């Protein structure tokens, strides 16, 4: 059982806020076993970051670099300006653990004091899980549709699927897709592990014709996005047009995926590099695929995310300029 979205979009910008990684080409390699955490202030200036939670700060960094790379934004720090109409740029953020730290801090404070007296009103917006998407929109003046996907393991690829849907429906000309997860004690306790991503990746997607018209580089093309009930159904749906993928990105827990699936395609797993990446995974996969094409790889690639007791999402990717 498959739901498929067929119109394509191209990736014209990638932005990363990842520990130990400078470029999309490096996403699959373990450069440093214990990298320094990303310092958002060093990347985009410390002004405007106060009272923002960790996920929001990481998201702002990745969004900044993706918009600059796509040629949609000029400037640096708080002095940036958008080069296109604000209404034309939509934002979709995928995050599952984004504001859990803010939420538990408030209930801890209340229980300790037996009162709401010491809770600071300044954290109010952080209690709503759309805080990253709204702060990204505010900082870079993005007035198109604004969506936060909190959809578990498929979230990053679902965000890409909704970006394709907006472009097809004409609701936006450019879509900024952000995948972000923070590392903190609440997240570690919930996932039951201490290797948790503390980072973000962002992509700018637009229609191939629009990218060509403004001579933006098409780093990769998202040909098709699907939702299915299993990993096997997902790879089958993505290759239904006879495509022979050179490689595929495995879902979280990829080591358990059936070894018979897609024989001949390289298995690419981001878990050994970043640990649990949850809602950011799908965006990381596409950023990495765009990086592969920069190194001269040409074959189509599949990105697959999901859990078989929930749902599985996939995207078929090929080089942007053939």
């Amino acid at each position, binding site marked *: *059982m498959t739901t*498929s*979205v*067929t119109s394509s979009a191209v990736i014209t910008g990638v932005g990363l806020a990842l520990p130990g990684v400078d470029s999309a080409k490096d996403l699959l390699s373990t450069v440093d076993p214990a990298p320094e955490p990303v310092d958002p202030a060093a990347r985009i200036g410390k002004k405007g970051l106060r009272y923002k939670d960790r996920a929001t700060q990481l998201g702002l960094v990745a969004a900044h670099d993706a918009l600059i790379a796509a040629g949609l934004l000029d400037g640096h720090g708080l002095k940036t300006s958008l080069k296109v109409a*604000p*209404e034309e740029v939509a*934002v979709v953020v995928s995050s599952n*653990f984004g504001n*859990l730290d*803010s*939420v*538990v801090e*408030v*209930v*801890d404070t*209340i*229980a300790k004091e*037996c*009162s*709401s007296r010491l*809770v600071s*009103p300044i954290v*109010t*917006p952080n*209690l*709503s*899980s*759309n*805080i990253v*998407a709204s702060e990204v*929109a*505010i900082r870079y*003046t*993005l*007035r*198109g*549709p*604004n*969506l*936060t*996907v*909190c*959809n*578990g393991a498929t979230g990053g690829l679902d965000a890409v699927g909704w970006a394709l*849907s*907006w472009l097809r*429906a004409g*609701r936006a000309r450019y879509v900024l897709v952000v995948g972000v997860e923070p590392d903190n004690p*609440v997240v570690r*306790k*919930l*996932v039951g592990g201490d290797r948790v991503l503390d980072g973000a990746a962002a992509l700018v997607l637009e229609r191939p014709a629009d990218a060509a018209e403004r001579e933006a580089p098409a780093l990769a093309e998202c040909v098709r996005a699907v*939702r*299915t*009930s299993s990993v096997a159904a997902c790879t089958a749906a993505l290759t239904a047009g006879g495509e022979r993928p050179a490689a595929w990105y495995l879902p979280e827990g990829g080591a358990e995926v059936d070894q018979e699936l897609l024989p001949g395609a390289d298995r690419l797993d981001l878990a050994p590099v970043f640990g649990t990446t*949850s809602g950011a995974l799908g965006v990381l996969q596409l950023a990495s695929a765009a990086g592969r094409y920069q190194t001269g790889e040409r074959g189509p690639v599949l990105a697959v995310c999901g*859990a078989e*007791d*929930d*749902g599985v999402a996939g995207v078929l990717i090929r080089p942007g300029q053939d």
Partner: protein
Amino acid sequence: MTERWPITGVGAVASVGRTAEEIFESLCAGRTGLAPMREFTKDWYTAGELYEIQADTKDAAGQPSTAQRATGFLLDAVAQALADAGMDEDLGDIPVLVGTGLRELRSVERWWRDGDPLTAAGLHFGAALRERFNASNTHTFSNACSASLYALSLATDLLADEAGPEVVVVAGTDSITESMFGIADRVQSVPPGAVRPFDRNRMGTILGEGAAAVVLRRAPRDGAAPRGWVRGVGVNCDAIHATAPDAGMIAQVMRETHRRAGVAPAEIDLVMLHGTGTPANDLGEAQAMGEVFGEDVTSPVMTAMKSMTGHTSGGSGLHSLITALGSMRTGRIAPTITLDDPMDEVETFRIVRDKEASAKVSLAQINAFGFGGINAVAIVEAAS
């Protein structure tokens, strides 16, 4: 011809009723859901009343549960909507789009502080919808108080696509989190006695809870009259302030929605106002309504149902939409029961007060605006 999509089933739960029908009757009768709060420790807070659902929910296996309440409300509303649409409960790859403000963050609070069980998969609604309805194409959107109308807009995009699905289930759900209630309690040094939309003496919002769901199709089923039609949904983002609304961007999304739906303000018979009872929100909404409707602002009847349900957050847009469908069917408009002294900006608005009114409604506008300046407006049309 303008596109429109039939709504073939509805379902809802809220403090004032456990079905869409019950809620509509309560609203028309002017019954409030405000009651002494159950979920939180009374001694810790100045406020003592919320618009809570005074009953346990059922989990995905059908067992009564006091946990995962947002999920329980959602499953209830979706089941009602499927039954109303004459569909069975095996959804397969039919998309289920769920808008929520606070997803299962109440469960996160109980897990972290009180030791309740929770896994990462329990933060959103996918696994529960898979277990209960065999739904494998589910989407949880955390889009604050406009979430369910945002989800509706995405559903219309899918249905407008030739390669898209025939049917989409759209829902909204929320249970009250202690963090959000606690921060309101901190900010409201004198607790508001009730949600008073557009009243000069409005003192802030009070949270409510519940869920709403609709079944939306590409075309009507043979021989079955729809509940009504979605004519168009517009969405945008202020990109100005994290919590304060912007009247200009709200006006812009209303105009965009009217354009999509192919309607003029003078043709709209009913407006379901967002009306949260906070000073800034109601002012922004009133200014935008005045700007977009101009002299025609005296034409539609209006009501703000949060005066009886409290702020049902992610579900509120669809709660209003389903109530509008009830008004279309019956000609009855629920009152805004707490509006005693209207603010200047709504002086000429025909907001129904005190008791229910009668009006023939063919076209209705639904407003929903959320934190982060995310705005959504829908136009629905009567079945006949």
